[in-house]
């Protein structure tokens, strides 16, 4: 089934960004020695536990509007693009297992593993979106409703292609996963150096840049 869906896997990604990991763990500033040691231990332990997989389709831009309907956020990201890439990415289940394991033994490590997973899935999306020109956006960004998540799963056959599943509350398993759309706009580079938080409606975010 769904033979139109492509799969891309990555043997490895750019190296861990420790600063980002610390940020996801709620830390600000330079890590002291104890913290840096713990982080290194965690990085050592989860090396090789990632399995980077992306399922995607490339479609004319009209397909996006027919499938997902109107949204200001989507327009802001896609206007001017002729094609759209719709994708789902995951780093696999092992990092969830590590988080669960350490929840019982060391919450600090669990926190770090969860931060490492967040950094990895972002790195995977960045790597995958390289070269499309557009900036990716997901269900739940701005006015693009979270409920559209089911549409991504309907299109991409995520469970069979990359082992990614959606529950009734629209949460994904493995948790370190992203579904998103990105415009292909060869001429205009819309990507900033950092993710843009300005479109987000959530005011209380600790991680706002």
């Amino acid at each position, binding site marked *: *089934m*769904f*033979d*139109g869906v*492509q*799969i891309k*896997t990555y043997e490895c990604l750019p190296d861990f960004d420790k600063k980002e990991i*610390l940020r996801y*763990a*709620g*830390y*600000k500033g330079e890590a*002291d*020695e*104890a*913290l840096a*040691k*713990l982080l290194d231990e965690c990085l050592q332990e989860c090396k090789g536990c990632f*399995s980077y997989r992306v399922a995607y*389709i*490339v479609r004319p831009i009209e397909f996006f509007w027919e499938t997902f309907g109107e949204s200001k956020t989507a327009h802001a990201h896609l206007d001017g693009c002729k094609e759209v890439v719709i994708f789902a990415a995951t780093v*696999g*289940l*092992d990092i*969830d*297992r590590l*988080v*669960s*394991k350490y*929840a*019982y*033994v*060391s*919450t*600090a490590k*669990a*926190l*770090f593993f*969860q931060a490492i997973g967040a950094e990895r899935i972002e790195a995977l999306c960045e790597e995958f979106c390289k070269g499309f020109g557009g900036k990716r956006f997901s269900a*739940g960004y701005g006015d693009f409703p*979270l409920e559209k998540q089911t549409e991504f799963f*309907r*299109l991409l056959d995520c*469970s*069979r292609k*990359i*082992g990614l*599943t959606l*529950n*009734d*509350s*629209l*949460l994904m*398993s*493995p*948790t370190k996963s992203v579904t998103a759309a990105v415009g292909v706009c060869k001429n205009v580079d819309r990507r900033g150096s950092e993710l843009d938080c300005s479109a987000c409606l*959530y005011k*209380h975010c600790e991680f706002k840049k």
Partner: protein
Amino acid sequence: MRNVREFLQQNIVYLDGGTGTLLQEAGLPLGELPERWNITHADVIQAIHRGYFNAGSNIVCTNTFGANRLKFPQAELAEIVKAAVENARMAAASSCGAQEKFVALDIGPSGKLLKPYGDFAFEDAVALFAETVKLGVQYGVDLIYIETMSDSYETKAALLAAKENCDLPVFVSCAYGADGKLMTGASPAAMVAMLEGMGADVIGVNCSVGPKQMQSVVDELLENASVPVLVKPNAGLPITDGGNTRYDIDEKEFALLVAEFVRKGARLVGGCCGTTPAYIAELVVRTKGLEPACITKKERTCVSSYTHAVYFDEPVLIGERINPTGKKRFKQALKEKDTAYVLAEGISQQEKGAHILDVNVGSPEIDERAELPRYIEELQAVINLPLQIDTSDPVAMERAMRIYNGKPLVNSVNGKKESMDGIFPLVKKYGGVVIALTLDEKGIPDSAEERVQIAERIVAEGAKYGISKKDIIVDPLAMTISADKNAAKVTLEALRMLKAKGLHTSLGVSNVSFGLPSRETVNAAFFALALQEGLSAAIINPNSVEMRKTYHAYLALQGLDENCGGYIRFATEIIPQYAPVESTAVKSVSIETKDGTPLKTAIVKGLSSVAAEACQELLKTQSALEIINGEIVPALDEVGKAYEEKRAYLPQLLMSAEGAKSAFEKIRLHMIASGEAQTKKCKIVLATVKGDIHDIGKNIVGTLLENYGFDVLDLGRDVSPEKIVEEVLRTGAPAVGLSALMTTTVPSMAETIKLLREKAPNVKIIVGGAVLTEEYAKEIGADGYGKDALQAVRFMEKLYADLCKN
């Protein structure tokens, strides 16, 4: 028509190829459910099936890959399966092919991930597959074909459903990725162990990749399986050209590659995504005249987890620590449902080199039938070692074996008729390797000969159930030499005799020294002697350095350790003077401690082993209460204050919490030893609400509350409102903490609060989670809002103070 099982014995069997591409060519739009086409486009479906029968397929799979109750209502599901079977039958009848033709009920994965990482309960998965199986049987399929499974646990659910609802042959095929593993981590060998144990007729691989990338998986299946092996690859890897997808291998290359699998021993072959009748026709031509490979019984004893198989070819260490016998602290943990404590025992044994973990939670006051399966589920969520299920209650045993994700080690059966009648049917149904104790109605025989005779009786009785002797490991029982000076000699002799009979053996080694001083000395020597007599598995305490020394030295001495690599690694890690010099001292920390005593400093700096040692030292001179109030709490407060003033951040807060936790563990052991009762502040029930599977925030709150002396009952994640209410009423807890991460799960939190207000109006509720705000917390009727874990502590401190006043 001939029987599928018979046909399989004498022939190379051709399966069909892909249907997805063909359906899309016929106009099936992306995202539409293809199973409906059985009814709406019966002619198209029949033509596809007929194409495969004409090409020479012996078995065609019904178009029911996703035909289950998650996707279709009951009535429509029945219609679809009925039409699907009819379509395949019509195609067989109208095909020009002269070969034997069979129709398989196709069952694909549910698309849901099973608990604990997904939200689909194991028994719900069994029920889901059972419904489709029953329909297939009703409409007359010849066999069940479970395919494209990417999770071992779901595969077990599907096979169990098939076995419980029909006597038809069941073929089980999984989708292994380019790394040769299932999406959730299982190796082909692990899958063979589990599926063969449960009675799959055929085991195989399909989808995901092409024949080139499938080589290692096919080899591993052929090497381990004692049943016919099935191979159904894609037509290579997909490539896009101009928006269209095609595969990179044509029918000729495909047929040549797959014919090679047949030569190696594969007995059932076909194609998956991208293959067409032309591929199958070519495959039939290319394999013409090949002799079907002989299927040999592989007599290797192994158990498996959801990732890997453990073989008994070389000595295996079974960790014995998850067992309350003689351990007050462990009994207390079981009584308090302190899952964390039990899991930590498991994790530490894995770190110390155990290959398998024994799990025994039998203790007075414990409902073993509920708790044993619960602990098995908890353990297999975070530890990838095979488990040895240890109970004398057959009901608890069955429940645990049923939900175990792999092929378990079963502890145990013995020569008593009652025991064999109870255990062997379970081993037959769920698969497993069973430990056979050489005792019977008359007790434990004194002589080695008699123990071996009991072992032979057990093996003979097992054979009646079809359980092979490779799945029985004999424990000739180590008895203490302090009671009988010849006890060890008899056991060693029995080991020698059992080995000569081709049986594997295991021993609970440490029994031998019962009643003697310096037991480890005797244990280690006995262990070495037993290994020399061919002992296959030892149940030991992996924390015992002496036992591990013996084990690693034995492997090195017997040429079982290439370049002594394992021994050297062990020696340099364990025995301090051989370790490379490394500074473990941590010099700078960002939070400076005032008036730091060693314990306080260690907690503030988050050094848990230092904190444990410092606490141990203090316990010699101070009372538990003095240490808690004079050292631990002030240290926690100091870090908490730094956190609130943004001089310290969450990771440091948690590292300190761990430091405090390890100090508390010392205090706890001290109090248990001295018989002092522990006092805790009030109870709080914690849960992540139904539908939500994120629990790191809740776990952080739990850790901090425990540190501040609260009695935390953590119900986990994805917990229904009913369950939360039930536990609040059962425990009489004055407070509940609820966590929800997503906007989609906040309604579930509101629903929980509503039910709590109705059934337990006095309970105080505090909520937290990423998307929650204070205003929203009020709106849904919570009493408190925790922006972070420390606020939750403050809330509880205030509540406790109020409770004490009244």
